[in-house]
């Protein structure tokens, strides 16, 4: 096409006329760090709140013969050695204390036995496009109890044209004293996907209903009365690589 196009000159001039001050790669890195930190904080808060709420509910429904005098309810809840209704839902060798209201216990360093704490959250390190590394912070507030084993899984869903999600890939690992941290490797579909990293005994569902918010989807889809230590959303990511219209 040899004909003169006067608009080409207009657009060339526009290119040079627009002065941009890029925020820079450092700003992008800071943004990502801030978001990951915020996500971790939110997830930890959600887990702690959910645990407290479930604990309060469990305390309400205790059988009458276990009711203690009112004065005994005023102190900090103490873990008991018996498995609770909630912990019976969690597989593996670990049994956990019933969830009762009250502040988190002090760091469990030096404690023994499986029911050494009421709270816990799996932390996320260095997620990439195909791997996530998860860990229980042994030096932090929520170390693993001796012998404790925490189920963690990554579930990748593809979207259909109506925004419902269908399981594309999943992998399950267990964190314990000998496997901490652990790296999960995952695969994604070609066009649009949602990645959930969850800890706990939740079922990996084959499909999830359409929802605008992937984090809300994750929580709503996976959580139930099984909230407890190390149960929750560790990481959630949704991305669209822009396939042609009509391609999921």
């Amino acid at each position: 096409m040899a004909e003169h196009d006067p608009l080409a000159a207009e657009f060339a001039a526009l290119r040079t006329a627009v002065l941009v001050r890029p925020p820079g790669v450092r700003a992008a890195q800071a943004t990502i760090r801030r978001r990951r930190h915020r996500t971790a904080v939110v997830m930890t808060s959600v887990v702690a709140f959910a645990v407290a709420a479930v604990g309060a509910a469990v305390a309400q429904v205790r059988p009458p013969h276990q009711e203690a005098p009112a004065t005994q309810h005023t102190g900090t809840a103490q873990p008991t050695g018996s498995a609770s209704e909630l912990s019976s839902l969690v597989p593996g060798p670990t049994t956990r204390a019933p969830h009762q209201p009250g502040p988190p216990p002090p760091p469990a360093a030096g404690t023994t036995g499986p029911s050494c704490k009421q709270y816990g959250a799996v932390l996320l390190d260095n997620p990439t496009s195909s791997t996530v590394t998860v860990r229980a912070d042994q030096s932090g507030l929520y170390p693993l109890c001796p012998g404790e084993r925490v189920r963690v899984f990554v579930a990748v869903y593809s979207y259909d044209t109506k925004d419902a999600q269908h399981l594309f890939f999943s992998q399950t690992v267990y964190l314990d004293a000998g496997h901490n941290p652990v790296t999960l490797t995952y695969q994604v579909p070609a066009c649009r996907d949602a990645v959930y990293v969850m800890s706990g005994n939740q079922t990996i569902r084959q499909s999830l209903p359409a929802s605008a918010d992937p984090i809300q989807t994750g929580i709503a889809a996976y959580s139930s009365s099984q909230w407890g230590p190390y149960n929750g959303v560790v990481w959630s990511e949704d991305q669209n690589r822009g396939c042609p219209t009509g391609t999921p």
Partner: protein
Amino acid sequence: MDSPRPDDFSEFYAAHFHSLTVQLFAHTGDLNEAQDVVQEAFCRALARWSRIVTYDDPVAWVRRVAWNLATSRWRRVRTAVAFAKRQREEQVAEPSPDRVVLVAALARLPERQRQAVVLHYLADLPLAAIALELGVAEGTVKSWLHRARTALADQLVEVNAEGGSDG
């Protein structure tokens, strides 16, 4: 496959930030908004850079994300844009008035025609690539570009004529 070097992203960012911002500016008509969405798209690219760097055309991915962000933001805040613009601290200088005329003329085009024009004149994409990116046939892109050129030329002539009669 070689793992991507950390420097790759910096080079990628430096090479394409300005160009993409101009394209988004032509699309949205708001330079600050354009810069915001392009930076956000680069943030998302950085978060998954090891995967994106393996794509045939990583720039297309960033442009698509920025475009989607601009579109969805545009839908959500359309009614508040004017107010927000008045309140926001300007990060960059707006281009000169004659360039603003071009952007204003672009804003009057139907969205798909505007997209085609931006991809043709500012992203320098061939017809086949534009068709692929917009999910339409090449003939459709040709038609859009033809109509858009005519409309833009008419508007620019009108503005020039008004400017001439004023002066």
